[in-house]
């Protein structure tokens, strides 16, 4: 998802009787559905896994501003421009909620951001794909934020209090994102033949990367079991992907567009769609840094960070001067 391959302890899940008294009391609180709060005792692995997941999630929100930021100055109308600007501003806000949640685990935000800028931290593979034209703004809002909603609605039930509360805030704002995207798609799919073709093309290109957002198949997802036991993760990758496909295919049909997967059919018995897996080799390549836009994205983040340094330092110098004057 926004955190697609979060390493956990790398070990199997311990049975209750193998745990120390502290670990056991902790696991029992989680099993009872209690939230864990920042100053509570927690296993080292729980803290580390959470820091990885929340910071990756935060980085995804921040880098996620770039593909859409690309089109703010070229939006077709002033209204579309204002909407897109508000949406991108929300993404910045979501990144800040998440960094704030990660910091409650005793890490410094500056260190997390350094890890991103230096290329040591991961963010969602989806943001390493280009946004080529205005139809992509529709497809991104609809598919990417739609996929994010599936994951984030589930994550409201995550065991760590600050993370769960950040998800509640984010979910409240996210449906605006998906709806504005679908609104663009409806306009384009109902427009001229050329506009409809642009909508189809955007869907064709973003469908597979959107499916990849949920992470590798459960069978290959080595770190999931421990994260699920700790309720850091509350839904498996395959469950999320299925839910997304089931909700999205009828929306494609409503637009009068073709589902990009010829083999996608509704299985009458299960009530779920069967669908083709995306190309997992491509997914792992993008995650490793070899996607179409990985280099561009990091370059843009580094440039923004470096060019904003004088401003951050200037405000801090001013604050210090005021403080000395007041003393």
């Amino acid at each position: 998802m926004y955190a697609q391959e979060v390493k956990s302890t790398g070990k199997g899940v311990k049975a209750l009787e193998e745990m120390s008294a502290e670990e056991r009391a902790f696991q029992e609180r989680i099993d009872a559905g209690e939230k864990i709060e920042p100053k509570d005792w927690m296993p080292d692995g729980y803290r580390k896994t959470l820091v990885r997941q929340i910071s990756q999630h935060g980085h995804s929100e921040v880098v996620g501003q770039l593909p859409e930021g690309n089109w703010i100055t070229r939006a077709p109308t002033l209204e579309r421009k204002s909407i897109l600007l508000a949406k991108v501003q929300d993404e910045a806000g979501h990144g800040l909620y998440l960094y704030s949640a990660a910091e409650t685990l005793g890490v410094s935000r500056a260190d997390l951001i350094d890890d991103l800028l230096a290329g040591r931290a991961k963010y969602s593979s989806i943001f390493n794909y280009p946004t080529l034209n205005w139809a992509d703004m529709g497809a991104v809002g609809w598919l990417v934020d739609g996929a994010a909603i599936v994951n984030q609605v589930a994550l409201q039930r995550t065991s760590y209090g600050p993370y769960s509360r950040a998800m509640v805030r984010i979910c409240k704002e996210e449906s605006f994102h998906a709806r504005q995207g679908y609104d663009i798609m409806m306009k384009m799919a109902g427009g001229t033949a050329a506009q409809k073709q642009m909508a189809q093309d955007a869907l064709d290109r973003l469908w597979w990367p959107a499916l990849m957002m949920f992470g590798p198949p459960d069978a290959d997802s080595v770190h999931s079991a421990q994260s699920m036991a700790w309720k850091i993760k509350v839904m498996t990758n395959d469950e999320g992907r299925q839910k997304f496909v089931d909700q999205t295919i009828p929306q494609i049909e409503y637009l009068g567009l073709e589902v990009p997967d010829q083999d996608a059919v509704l299985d009458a018995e299960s009530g779920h769609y069967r669908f083709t897996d995306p190309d997992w080799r491509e997914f792992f390549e993008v995650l490793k840094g070899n996607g179409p836009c990985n280099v561009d994205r990091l370059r843009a983040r580094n440039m923004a960070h470096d060019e904003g340094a004088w401003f951050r330092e200037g405000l801090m110098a001013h604050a210090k001067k005021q403080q000395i004057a007041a003393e």
Partner: protein
Amino acid sequence: MTNEWPLWEIFIRGQHGLSHRHVGSLHAPDAEMAILNARDVYTRRNEGVSLWVVKSSDISASAPGRKGPMFDPSNDKTYRHPTFFDIPDEVGSM
């Protein structure tokens, strides 16, 4: 790094008549900027009519490990709850 903006805890009053509630934190160079940043980060959709910002380092908290000794006594005194007392129905609502 001393040049890092300090951390502030943000409290919002949702509407007139309610108390300020903690909503999260953010970094800012001083209180004035913390309020402006909090406006942008935490109140983009009518969430509040008033903001408090407090430096995180200025907050003292009770220790979670001492939750028992700290709060258990409030459970022993069941007579503090009105339901402890049986008042006959004939008396009417009280």
